[in-house]
């Protein structure tokens, strides 16, 4: 059999719901693992991405670290896939985009009722938030998009198996969902 395809996955400004949906392909993970092996991913805990065939990125870009990770994925992955609503259009985190970031931070950390000694977190280890949340394709070139919040396990399975088989991935009625 030919060499296994190397697949990296990550969640940026996402909720890991799309990763849960990847796991939700259940026992089909076994035949899938005959064809692929995971590189950087929350499933392997590998911290940095090596050369890969496919990268799956969940979540949009909301802070400086997201930008670095996304560039690392683009640099290393031959095919980069945006998975889920947040990666494709910013999703829930982007619902702050019409608000001023400063006033968001002030409200959450300083003026919200019940805060005793509130302060805006400023630990140097914390990545700086961007003023807007961006879909992935505004930052790097994205080759494919799997919509859904999250995409169903069946949609992910169909998309990946089409791609691995060398076909143009198609979802079709019932698998293409924006919600």
């Amino acid at each position, binding site marked *: 059999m030919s060499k296994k395809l190397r697949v990296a996955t990550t969640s940026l400004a996402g909720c890991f719901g799309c990763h849960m949906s990847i796991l939700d392909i259940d026992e089909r993970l076994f035949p899938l693992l005959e064809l692929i092996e995971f590189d950087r991913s929350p499933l392997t805990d590998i911290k940095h991405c090596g050369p890969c065939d496919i990268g799956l990125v969940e979540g949009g870009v909301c802070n400086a670290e997201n930008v670095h990770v996304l560039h690392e994925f683009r640099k290393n992955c031959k095919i980069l896939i*945006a998975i889920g*609503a947040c990666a*494709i*259009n*910013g*999703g*829930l985190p*982007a*619902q702050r*985009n*019409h*608000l001023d970031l400063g006033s968001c931070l002030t409200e959450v950390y300083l003026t919200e009722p019940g805060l005793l000694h509130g302060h805006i977190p400023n630990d140097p280890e914390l990545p700086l938030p961007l003023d*807007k949340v961006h*879909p992935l*394709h*505004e930052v790097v070139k*994205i080759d*494919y*998009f*799997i*919509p859904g*919040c999250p995409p169903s396990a069946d949609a992910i399975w169909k998309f990946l198996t089409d791609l691995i088989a060398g076909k143009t991935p*198609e*979802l*079709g*009625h*019932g698998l*293409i*969902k*924006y*919600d």
Partner: protein
Amino acid sequence: MKETFLLDGSTIPFEPGQTVMQAALAAGHYIPHLCYHPEFKPHGSCKLCTVKINGRTVASCTMPAEAGLQVESGIEELNALRRSLVQMLFAEGNHFCPSCEKSGNCVLQALGYDLEVHATGFRHLYPDRPLDASHPDILLDFNRCILCELCVRASSEVDGKNVFALSGRGITKHLIVNAESGKLSDTNISLTDKAMQVCPVGVILPKRVGFSVPIGERRYDQRPISAQALDDAPRQIHTSGSCSTCEDAP
């Protein structure tokens, strides 16, 4: 014998006075559309129904059927343009499907599904248009308006109330409520109005029923809009005023 034209190679019979869209739907041929509604005068604004006739692009909902026309609709060139139109509508409003109670019943979303629109492609505007929750039974979320004017047409032509209108031009064009306060509670709109039933997206919403039909069991969850629209079309051409007919239908 009825006169006919050709749509993607199929012979379509038509009655005098019918548009290309009306004749196509009546003959069981779907042309994607958004602002067209069988019960209202064609508006011709969304351009989703654009077809090619003798090499020229025209809106099929406003184009009168003529004998011998050669109409192209289901070609990749037009579907690519339709995808861009859907993408632009998504980018211009705040169409956040995961939090919208219209999801599954939304015509814009269903068209996106049917045309296999996987991504939005354009830079989103993320507008911030305040909601109008002033009415006890009805909520307005202007962030999802696609300016199809179906509610404007329904309210003035069927309900005789003239509750809605469009104001402004170009990118600042927006839906308004015809009341001095601008609030829906200061109009005589009611839940049974036609204007309540025609919004293709999630702008005009009856309160307290949002999730009475669960996600996954909704109109376009069952069948793609291309199949659903054909079921609706011939019947709706002959109905007007009340929507009980469509609600009772299978």
